[in-house]
């Protein structure tokens, strides 16, 4: 005897659900990152040298990977968010599957662009 089944991954295997989850997770992670980001930049209050001291931390490759992740997450959240605004405020044109594809592609490009520019 067991409990009746509940909604599992099979019910959620569609594009709209995927981008909803990506948008939610990216938002959550960005919200966690934001105070850290502001804290680092606020060290500029103590002068350029103090800020530089903290910026040097970003030279570690682990931090660079984190930054790449954040740029990608930010782009997902941006494009996924614009899609939601289109759904909620724009003329109704379905679940905007095109925007989902754009979100995925643009966030990959964004991440690659970061890697290329950050060396």
């Amino acid at each position, binding site marked *: 005897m067991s*409990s*009746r*089944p509940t*909604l599992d991954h099979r019910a959620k295997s*569609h594009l709209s*659900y995927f981008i909803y989850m990506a948008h939610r997770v990216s938002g959550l992670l960005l919200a966690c990152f934001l105070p850290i980001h502001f804290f680092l930049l606020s060290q500029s209050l103590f002068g350029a040298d103090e800020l530089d001291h903290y910026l040097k931390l970003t030279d570690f490759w682990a931090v660079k990977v984190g930054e790449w992740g954040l740029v990608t997450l930010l782009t997902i959240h941006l494009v996924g968010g614009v899609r*939601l605004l289109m759904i909620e405020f724009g003329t109704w044109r*379905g*679940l905007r599957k095109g925007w989902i594809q754009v979100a995925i592609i643009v966030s990959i490009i964004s991440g690659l662009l970061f890697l290329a520019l950050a060396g």
Partner: protein
Amino acid sequence: MGLIIVKNYFISIKNLFDLTFTIPRYNSTMSETNLKVKVWRGAEQGEFVEYLVPRNSNQTVLDVVTYIQRKLDPTLSYRFACRVGMCGSCAMTVNGVARWTCRTHVAKIVEGDALEIAPLNNLPVIKDLATDMREFFNKWKGAVGFFKGEQTRHDDFAIVKPDSEERQLANAGIECIGCAVCYASCDVVASRSNYLGPAALNRAWTLTNDVRDTQQLDRLRAVAGDAGCHTCHTHGSCTERCPKQLEPTAGISGLKKLVARAAVRGTKWGKL
């Protein structure tokens, strides 16, 4: 005859002390093409029981369930009515996805030779594949998903232009037959027991666009709040799964804007 042997095979597995395994699964009297169908038996607690059902071309999941009940196990409980995709009574969870079983061809969704059939999610189970639909329809009422006008038979007909924006918005959502597939597919319904759900909200939306209705402010109040439209987080399963291709996400988005405006500025019917 072959199927009775198969049934005995399953019963003999269950009797762990009975070491006589009679006949292997497939013998020459059975075709190779059998479906292995797991069906939920029980209520909130229960188990999946596997049945072997002969596979045919042009077979729907409803055909499969009916076969099981008529030929293999008469104690199986399930619902259907029209069996031609008009009434929505046969909605069940097939391979994890809510569908109308009479409109779901086995060939389209079978995984190898396996099917898993369970009752609709998010609704209490009465028995096996039949769910208690009362909360679904109570929420419809709770969202003021019913019409009330002020004219009587003695008045002239109301003039409603079919091409007006409001009528077109209403028409886009009024074909709902209350099958609960959207309700069963919704994460928010699963996590919040009082959430009105996509069908009730969709109906409320069509009625906010009915110029004859006189309960608009009550309706807006009913669909506001924690259990209302703003709790929808737009994951879109309702729109994805509706067997009539209705789009509750559209109606809920419309309600979100309307209720927000009613809360902040007020609408032509008043302020929240």
